[in-house]
């Protein structure tokens, strides 16, 4: 199996994937037992990362906010059935991925009103945005989970309901397609 660290800079908004910290695990456990306060803290901790993922996946902030709301509602309902609190993060992303797919927006052709990014075009960010949004939805989906959110191949497979081999081949083809678009 090919395991690669994708080493990002220290100010990366998505910290490298790691097991939940002890405090987070306790929050998950309390939320499973019905603590709305603990669930709120989890949302504050993990919500921004999920939201960024959804924005890039759906190319639209309003759709991402809707999908985030649906994700949180489903997560609250499903938390008691989460057998391993340590897998809360990939589990939550799996829900978000399915809610994004349910919205169907990521499968629409690119539109003029797709995500606008504030600020000047530093370091070719707009070019990356256009290349990412031009990819087919299933390529974008796997790229974001694998390299933006940085789940392992096994976790991506579990989140999307695919086989690990499919994730590997799809992410390789998606990488190639993205780099070709970027020249």
């Amino acid at each position, binding site marked *: 199996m*090919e395991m*690669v*660290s*994708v*080493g*990002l*800079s220290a100010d*990366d*908004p*998505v910290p490298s994937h790691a097991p939940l910290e*002890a*405090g987070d695990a*306790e929050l998950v456990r*309390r939320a499973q*037992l*019905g*603590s*709305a*306060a*603990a*669930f*709120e803290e*989890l*949302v*504050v901790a993990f*919500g*921004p990362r999920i*939201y*960024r993922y959804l924005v*890039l996946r759906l190319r639209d*902030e309003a759709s991402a*906010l809707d999908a*985030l*709301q649906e994700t*949180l*509602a489903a997560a*609250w*309902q499903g938390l*008691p*059935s989460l057998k391993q609190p340590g897998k809360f993060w990939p589990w939550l992303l799996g829900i978000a991925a399915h809610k994004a*797919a349910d*919205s*169907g927006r990521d*499968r*629409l052709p690119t539109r003029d009103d797709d*995500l606008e*990014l504030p*600020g000047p075009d530093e*370091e070719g*960010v707009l070019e*990356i*945005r256009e290349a*990412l949004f031009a990819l087919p939805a299933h390529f974008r989906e796997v*790229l*974001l989970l694998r*390299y*933006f959110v940085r789940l392992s191949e096994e976790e991506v497979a579990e989140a999307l309901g695919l086989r690990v081999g499919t994730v590997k081949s799809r992410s390789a083809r998606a*990488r190639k397609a993205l*780099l070709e678009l*970027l020249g």
Partner: protein
Amino acid sequence: MRRGRSEIDQRRIGQLLARLGRRVPTPPEHELRALARTAAEKERAPATEPGRRRPWRPLHLRWGVAVAVALLVGSGFGFGVGSRSGEDGAAGTRVVGFGFLPSKGWNVVQSGTVGATGTAHAVAANVSLSADDPASDLPYETLRRLPSNGAVIVAELSPRGAKGRDSLFRPRRAPLHLAEAAPDRLPDALAATNVVALRLRSGVSGHNVDARIFLGAPPSPESSASVDEQLRRLIVAPSAVTLVVQPPIIRSTSDRMTIFGSVSSGEAGKKVTIQFKACGLQPPQFRDAFETTTGEGGGFSLEELRPFNLGVSGVYRAVSGGEVSAEIRVQQRVAVYMRPLGGGRFQVWVGGKVSFWRRFVLLQRFERRRGVWITMRRLVLAESFAQGYSARFRPRVPRGTQLRAVMPLSQARPCYLEGYGPIFRT
């Protein structure tokens, strides 16, 4: 060389996406909190019967309401426990319940059994409980303001038999004593307080009792005596036989089932028979399905069972020494299969322990643009095939279309839940 190139590509893509992600604005914290509160407002569906609303909300009761309920329940409970034995010591009507009876100067709150695991929560405190504390969690608000003479006991009671967990709970005889408790790590939320945390895990009457004891100051003879008095009033009065079956819905042939539970006598080596009453079986009656014996503390468990061998929804119960547990319902999804026959034709069939003759499945195609499944037609199961009934069809769809067959609940009931077949690409 190729591998090195791949690593460079992956690192570059990670950096590009991170750069893009940094430019995406995120909702402010207050908006995230509002989203979380909205999500948590909706009552959780009970795990045992998804789709049906729970008639009351024990997990969300606030203390103010809960205390009032507890007084009512507690008084009834007190009469019940009192009626358990007469002057001659003979047992009366058996009382079943878990929780604290209040000691003098103490308040108690208890949930009763909750969820598919039969877990019960009970809290006792010699201070007023805060109205901001949720009933099913540690009472953090109360603990943050705990005075030096304050004491709070939070107990969680669950049936023995869950492997790997029972070993943490040493069998003991009631009443429990503070002296047997071990120091415990203080939750992070209480790190800034002087609260002292102790934990007492015990196997009592076939149940695991996890008592977390919080004191406002290190234990003194007075506080120990007060806590012991309240622990003496911890009631663990389960049914003679407790049974838990998980999961409550069997989804596929790969699902495995766990059955566990306990006998209230706490005896080891007692024979326990698990019986199953299958839906559709005539005459409807329980038949022996599994047999096991209890371990230390009265727990028993059967793991990695293949529920599909029994093949149909039904009801489980456990029998031991003439005592019978409550009945536990387990539902099963119907098995739907599909295979290509060649020449653009497919066969769909449905298997089960009951007849599906002349019932129908829905043939659906995936609409990629909208991301939804569209029903194309009904396929009536008229051919006998393997252990079920089948239908053949030739889909008129563009090449590459994803297809699946679904048996809706209206056709699968009463002995099955709806079932979904595998997805095929034409």
